[in-house]
């Protein structure tokens, strides 16, 4: 049996959340994501004990939390079980869940913990019947939510890739199964291009998925710019009150400050950073390093520039940096009431999203709202779908992404196309799983409908 995990507490803002892992590999997964402070390792923990420690994703710390270990058969499911309690809040909780999935867990099916409990003899027959009802009901719910998701844009995009893959597989299958027909040969370069295109789409899809999740729990936003161009003023404009110390001395904002601002329907978690300019000041240097790191991690950057001065090396360094990170961004040109030393067109080559404001003018808030609403327009995320359906879709997209990468690797290594094709098969199957189709049938139908083949 595979090792499964799920969030076991209601998915809502709260004090703590619990992620439950069950199965043979439960301790191994916990070992990978949890470092206890109070003992050497997860493996050393006895059943019915807990430890305080750090939840981490490689080198990155995700949260502090408590791990409770249950050893088989003394657990709810009768298998090894680990429960990670982390700080509540949808964002962190889902991050921990995803971390477990990434480290070898499968998402638990509806009622699966209970099902396992039953199989391992932990439940009575009457309880079992109740479980079947639950699974069935949740199955219906999953189906209904999957149907709901079908109308969503995420599903549309997944369908598009799976259709493309099935088409590609159809070409490969016809080429292999009908070697004597005068069909166009499959060109390796064309195949590579198709795989790269599909990978770009799954990659984008996965990124956007994260975005979609984040949009609901707040878009992680960095306000960046040279010292004293008015970042803090802008932040105050967005928040509606004075938050940072605003002075005319360059470099006065030394902390990364987090605040939430609501613009229309969108929630932004703003960090006002110190500038990214080179500095000798030790205290400020720490802030600059932090700012760089934040730029890399965040999902949205608001770059602020002062148009009354010509852009200097620092400004250009910022523009280049954000461009190289391929982040969604908004360029805010400040102090437009003063005489301009640089035109808007200079910034066009870095981003199309530009607003000119004077941070002292409250009406400008509306302009910024319109600009960000455009950037985060709804086709980029799927707000209507349920979380269950989303996680499942994401898991499928992730698997597909992985297999597509494997296919591309095989192709680039010069492997024969039979191996490459099987990897693409897996990718297509992962995506088709969402609609309950099977790649083999879809491909066979594709061959017969698109190619004139046969004796």
């Amino acid at each position, binding site marked *: 049996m595979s090792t499964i995990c799920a969030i076991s507490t209601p998915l809502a803002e709260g004090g703590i959340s619990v992620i439950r892992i069950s199965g043979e590999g439960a301790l191994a997964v916990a070992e990978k994501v949890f470092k206890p402070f109070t003992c050497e390792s997860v493996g050393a923990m006895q059943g019915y004990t807990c430890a305080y420690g750090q939840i981490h994703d490689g080198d990155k710390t995700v949260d502090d939390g408590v791990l409770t270990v249950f050893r088989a058969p003394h657990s709810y499911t009768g298998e090894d079980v680990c429960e990670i309690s982390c700080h509540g809040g949808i964002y962190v909780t889902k991050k921990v869940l995803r971390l477990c999935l990434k480290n070898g867990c499968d998402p638990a099916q509806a009622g699966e913990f209970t099902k396992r409990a039953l199989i391992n003899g932990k439940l009575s027959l009457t309880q079992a019947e109740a479980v079947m009802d639950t699974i*069935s009901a*949740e199955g219906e719910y*999953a189906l209904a939510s999957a149907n709901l998701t079908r109308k969503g844009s995420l599903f549309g995009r997944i369908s598009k890739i799976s259709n493309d893959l099935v088409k590609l597989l159809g070409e490969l299958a016809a080429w*292999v199964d009908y070697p004597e027909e*005068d069909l166009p040969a499959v060109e390796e370069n064309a195949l590579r291009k198709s795989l790269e295109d599909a990978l770009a789409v799954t990659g984008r899809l996965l990124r956007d998925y994260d975005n979609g999740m984040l949009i609901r729990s707040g878009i992680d936003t960095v306000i960046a710019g040279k010292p004293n161009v008015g970042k803090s003023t802008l932040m105050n404009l967005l928040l509606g009150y004075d938050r940072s110390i605003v002075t005319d001395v360059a470099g006065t904002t030394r902390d990364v400050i987090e605040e939430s601002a609501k613009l229309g329907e969108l929630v932004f978690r703003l960090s006002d950073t110190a500038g990214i300019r080179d500095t000798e000041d030790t205290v400020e240097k720490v802030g600059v390093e932090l700012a760089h790191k934040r730029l890399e991690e965040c999902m949205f950057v608001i770059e602020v520039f002062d148009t009354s001065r010509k852009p200097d090396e620092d400004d250009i360094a910022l523009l280049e940096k954000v461009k190289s990170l391929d982040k969604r961004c908004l360029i805010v040109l400040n102090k437009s009431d003063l005489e301009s030393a640089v035109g808007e067109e200079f910034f066009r080559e870095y981003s199309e999203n530009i607003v000119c404001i004077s941070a002292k003018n409250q009406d400008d808030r509306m302009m910024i709202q319109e600009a960000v609403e455009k950037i985060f327009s709804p086709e980029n995320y799927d707000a209507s779908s349920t979380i269950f359906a989303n996680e499942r879709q994401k898991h499928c997209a992730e698997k597909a992404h992985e297999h597509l990468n494997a296919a591309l690797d095989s192709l680039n290594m010069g492997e024969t196309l*039979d191996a490459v094709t099987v990897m693409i098969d897996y990718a297509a199957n992962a995506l088709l799983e969402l609609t*309950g189709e099977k790649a083999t*049938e879809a491909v*066979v139908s594709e061959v017969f409908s698109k190619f004139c083949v046969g004796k």
Partner: protein
Amino acid sequence: MENFDIIVIGAGHAGCEAALAAARLGLKTALFTITLDGLANMPCNPSIGGTAKGHLVREIDALGGEMGRAADKTLIQSRMLNRGKGPAVHSLRAQIDRVAYHRLMKKTVEDTDGLYLKQAEITDLLFEDDGRTVRGVRTHLGVEYGCKAAILASGTYLGGEIHVGAMTYPSGPDSVLPATKLTESLKAAGMELRRFKTGTPARVHKRSINFDKLEVQHGDEDITPFSFDNKVLPENKVDCYVAYTNAETHKVIMDNIHLSPIYSGRIHAIGPRYCPSIEDKIMRFSDKPRHQLFIEPMGLDTEEYYLQGMSSSLPVDVQLKFLRTIEGLENVEIMRNAYAIEYDCCDPTDLLPTLEFKEFHGVYGAGQFNGTSGYEEAAAQGLVAGINAALKLKGEEPMVLDRASSYIGTLIDDLCTKGVSDPYRMLTSRSEYRLLLRQDNADLRLTETGHRVGLIDDERYAAFLKKKEQIDAEIKRLTAINIAPSEKLNEYLSSQGTDPINNGIKLTQLIRRPQLTYEGLAFIDPERPVLPHDVCEQVELMIKYEGYIKIQLEQVEAMRKLENRKIPEDIDYSKVGSLRLEAAEKLAKIRPLSVGQASRISGVNPADINVLLVYLETMK
């Protein structure tokens, strides 16, 4: 009344394999055919194998079936298709001398102890009083024979009806008599039958073909035989040719399309998607400027040639007219015209994976009767039905091949679990485990099973074990070898277009590089033993594809876990609380043997499977 253990109805490719297997396993077997001269006939293309079908033939051979051996002895040209596309999709295809094949197979049947070949049309299956346990058959002359198992392998004979233009008449293939009564008897017993359609192109006279205008297609220089047991390598004796249709051909067909019984609506049966008639191809793919056809000899002592790709049900004069528009066929003489044929077949979801009917004890189906098409698909099912009928009568465990074991297993699972909507042809793309199920390793996958069942003798089994041992030993030896960089090696690596090495490397890592071969690296491996070619081939493939094989094996393991969760035969799905109605109906119809099979039924979703799993637990 004369009694047999097993009676096989129909002596085509399915029937012959079924009867041979049953008799060889010690059961007294009768093989009935409407005409002895039609035994193992090839009423369509004179060839065996092809993509995925070649895999089937090698698997039949590994299990102890006859088709591979017979094909090797009567082939007149052989080619390995898909060379260069990867070992998983290499496929053997051979042109066969049609009459020689028939004669050889007939003699093989005649020479088999305990096998009784009889010419008669079977008109009735006879059942016990329960109406569902077979007890015998009746012929058109009213003679009754008793049996404990009957295998239906009636092909296109059952209710056969030929269409050519406006003409329709009852007929079996190649102008033999059809089986006209058996359908009624099966329907009266409660069996559901449906109607499928297939077709065949014209046969033309050699002297009327202008070969100078055609592309020639030679056989392979070094022939791989179908049979793993083959000791005499076959030789190429003929060439095949390629020709093309053109705008004029298409115009003649389009001008006369109203005369086609399919387009005029007189045929309602479902034809195979993979084998469209030429009029189908032109109607459906009107943008294609030309279609290919292959011109193949029917044998060594005949002037008949087969026109692969030109199956049609248009009137004979139209056939002649469009053929004569083709370059090289300007003066062509038709000897046998093309036709479409309709026939009766069962719904294969009524069958168990042993090919026995769920509702009729001792009744098995095989071949076109089960909704497939192709000699190889038929032979594979015949073999499985014959083996299982024999095992059942002997009181032994049935032989059920799963999807990961073989193309045969994939074929039968597709039939029994998913059913068919048009005549089913095997394709490599139908197998999700195709990197494991290669034609080159069919013996490694199935000889063990063939031996256990009793169709592979001890001598052949010992040879197989030796091969396996040699492969294992050589892989083990290679894995232990480390190679140091040297000028000579690096020169060789560069010449093969791959990176030179700076540090020591495992020999297996070098073999794994796509640019290098086991053979080519012999010079850095002085200790290498002399091994047979087939052993070297397996060693190389197993090393090269180790990574992919591992991924596929993981999938197989996951699949087999569910496959091992058996569902009791007497399960009543209406009593499984919480099961969705649609799922309960589908499960009750297919009656899957395992949870794995249940999960492949369309319309049964993962939640249903979970409900089922829980229910099965509560039954313990």
